[in-house]
């Protein structure tokens, strides 16, 4: 460990201390439920946009996007673009009507629009399902980042002696305390700071690799990132990636020769390709010689396959080569469409993001917030893939020069786990301080997203269930207490989920688990909420039964398909399963099916049902009318006020 991690830990501790201090400071301004859940509904566009960006940019974005580009090239860039495009659906179709309708939460909207308690409770289930799916990768990210950063648990403290478990517990407890104490105001303030920290960390990393550079002693040159030129260099040779073969497989001369050929290709841009490849193969030989059994896995480099024209290649028995600047490494033709639809539609179905739209002072402010969100996250998603590309040459050069950080494993000049790219490239190019800033940025990404999810889950239970059904006469003090108790409950649940992920073997079943789990959360949100919101806002003929049918088909269908995919990855469903089970279990992104199925279900059931709420015109006027905004404008109440006032509506 040593000094390298000490600086990083100190910077993370500064972030934690600042977070807790802000929450304690915000406490005095959190007296009403509107303060606790909605920050008094007076958050300005710029501040709200920063907070939404903090909410949105999770560990998957901070660690995962650059890693995806590093590993996959162009398909990783497409993944980033999908994340950014999601807010267009929000700004065009949802932001303004949702804010005009008022209320506190998405289940409130469902109840207000369709008028039944059953509808509200179905929406609560949808919020909890989406939030729990989104909490899982954050907690997994917390455990794995802690493991890299701190590297140790508490000796003799049972399950806390495992650094992963300790990381999950520590991060969970920190967020639990700061959300319960600070409510939405404290969370908003923290998300603003956390967003700017993680954006600063990402941009600083790009600036350092571009202008300071890395002194590649192996080639006796100062390497500086040049977007077009580096992209050209990385795309000259085949895309190589880490892989694993058993000792028994490597004892087959043909397999060994293929591994040797791949290593030669991976060494192409090193100072002395022949010597580099020979040294790497010697390391593999040593691993084979010292292996305990023929089943022992050995890290090797493999040629990456192109999936773009999978069907054509399977029919013709051909294989396309994969290059960094060409599509096809992660997504086949079908997934090129379904992945982007999952992300674009899923963003508008994330309850913790939608909740933030109620904190805007007006519908117009909601649109302005979304524009700024697009600017902020757009810059982030432009920069992250550039860092991912820079990582290809910088990491290889660091290995070539013998100065690659010992905190990660490498083979053939490549990171074995691409998720370690951000802290690794920061350490290579910017030393201990940049590594510390980036590590704190990773924690900031996890804190801000988890905090938003905790608020969304707590409001679903505290506001939508307790205040409406269990104790409708609750005092303001009781309501806030229940909100805080719900935060504690869901934080403990998040810790449990984080603990259970390695126990189920999911972490080894998927190569990029954080990104995969985040996509699942988007798929659940896209299926459960987006069809209901779009039809509920834009089609007056949507009935309560139609909306429930859509949520069950879209949300329930997504959950079932995701679990089938998980069971297949875990081996519960056999790889040779055919028929409908095999087809569904193979769907990586269910949205392409569940979203249209949900919309069709809503339309058919609504047409058959035909029972509109008696006050449907009144509801319509609340969603699309602007008398309230005209009145607020007349009285100057459409402006944002400071976060540090209390007693919002």
């Amino acid at each position: 460990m040593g000094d390298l991690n000490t600086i990083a830990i100190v910077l993370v501790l500064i972030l934690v201390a600042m977070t807790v201090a802000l929450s304690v400071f915000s406490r005095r301004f959190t007296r009403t439920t509107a303060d606790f859940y909605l920050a008094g509904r007076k958050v300005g566009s710029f501040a709200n946009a920063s907070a939404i960006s903090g909410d949105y940019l999770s560990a998957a974005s901070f660690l995962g996007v650059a890693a995806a580009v590093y590993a996959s090239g162009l398909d990783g860039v497409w993944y980033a673009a999908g994340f950014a495009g999601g807010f267009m659906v929000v700004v065009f179709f949802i932001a303004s009507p949702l804010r005009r309708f008022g209320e506190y939460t998405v289940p409130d909207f469902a109840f207000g629009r369709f008028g039944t308690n059953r509808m509200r409770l179905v929406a609560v289930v949808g919020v909890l399902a989406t939030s729990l799916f989104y909490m899982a990768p954050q907690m997994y990210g917390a455990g794995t980042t802690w493991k890299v950063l701190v590297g140790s648990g508490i000796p003799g403290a049972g399950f806390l002696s495992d650094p992963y478990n300790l990381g999950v517990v520590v991060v969970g407890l920190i967020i639990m305390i700061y959300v319960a104490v600070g409510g939405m105001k404290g969370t908003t303030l923290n998300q603003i700071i956390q967003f700017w920290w993680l954006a600063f960390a990402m941009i600083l990393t790009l600036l350092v690799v571009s202008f300071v550079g890395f002194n590649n002693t192996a080639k006796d040159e100062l390497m500086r990132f040049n977007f077009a030129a580096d992209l050209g260099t990385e795309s000259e040779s085949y895309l190589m990636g880490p892989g694993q073969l058993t000792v028994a497989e490597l004892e087959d001369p043909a397999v060994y020769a293929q591994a040797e050929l791949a290593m030669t290709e991976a060494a192409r841009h090193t100072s002395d390709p022949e010597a580099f490849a020979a040294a790497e193969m010697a390391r593999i030989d040593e691993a084979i010689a010292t292996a305990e059994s023929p089943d022992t896995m050995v890290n090797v480099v493999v040629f990456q396959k192109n999936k773009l024209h999978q069907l054509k290649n399977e029919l013709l028995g051909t294989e396309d080569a994969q290059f960094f600047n060409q599509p096809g490494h992660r997504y086949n033709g079908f997934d090129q469409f379904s992945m982007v639809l999952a992300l674009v539609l899923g963003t508008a179905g994330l309850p913790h993001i939608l909740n933030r739209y109620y904190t805007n002072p007006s519908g117009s402010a909601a649109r302005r917030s979304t524009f700024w969100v697009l600017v902020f996250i757009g810059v982030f998603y432009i920069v992250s893939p550039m860092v991912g590309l820079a990582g290809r040459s910088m990491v290889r050069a660091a290995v070539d020069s013998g100065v690659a950080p010992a905190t990660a494993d490498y083979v053939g000049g490549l990171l074995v786990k691409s998720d370690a790219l951000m802290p690794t490239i920061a350490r290579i190019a910017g030393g201990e301080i940049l590594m510390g800033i980036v590590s704190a940025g990773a924690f900031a990404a996890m804190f801000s997203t988890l905090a938003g999810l905790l608020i969304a889950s707590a409001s679903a239970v505290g506001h939508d269930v307790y205040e409406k059904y269990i104790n409708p006469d609750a005092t303001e003090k009781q309501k806030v207490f229940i909100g805080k108790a719900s935060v504690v409950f869901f934080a403990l649940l998040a810790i449990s989920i984080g603990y259970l992920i390695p126990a189920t073997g999911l972490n080894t079943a998927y190569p990029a688990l954080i990104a995969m789990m985040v996509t699942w959360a988007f798929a659940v949100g896209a299926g459960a909420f987006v069809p209901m919101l779009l039809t509920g806002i834009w089609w007056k003929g949507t009935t309560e039964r139609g909306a429930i049918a859509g949520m069950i088909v879209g949300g329930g269908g997504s959950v079932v398909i995701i679990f089938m995919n998980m069971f297949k990855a875990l081996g519960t469903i056999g790889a040779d399963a055919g028929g409908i089970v095999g087809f569904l279990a193979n769907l990586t992104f269910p949205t392409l099916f569940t979203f249209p199925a949900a919309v069709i279900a809503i339309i058919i059931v609504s047409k058959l049902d035909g029972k509109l709420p008696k006050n449907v015109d009144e509801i319509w006027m609340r969603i699309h009318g602007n008398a309230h905004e005209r009145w607020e404008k007349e009285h100057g109440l459409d402006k944002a006020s400071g976060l540090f006032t209390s007693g919002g509506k």
Partner: protein
Amino acid sequence: MTTPPSSEVTITSTYIQHGDHIDTIESVDLVFKEQRKLSFTYGAIFFIVTLAVPALTVSVEGWWRTQIWGGFTWNYLFISLIYYVFLWTMAWTYSKKADALDDRLAEVADKVTEDVAEEILEAGA
């Protein structure tokens, strides 16, 4: 903290009144239709452009193979840089148009509801 003036909200099945401002179902339908036209036009452009990327990827080889500057292909250049400019332009122009529409429709809504409001208030009196 200042206390905001009461909006004296009245809600019925045919109109919503906040202070002196009234929304009738007729004025809201007018607002809704204009807003729907704007939102769905922009939404359609967004989805056409976004889905054109994978459509070109699976069908036009020159889109992802031809290098035009350094290592940039058209595909790489579009989704790493140009797509964001497209998103920002769409969001900005949409927000401005939606704000202008809000202002225009607020005036129209006030005019449309003026006569109805008088009738409602007279009937209430």
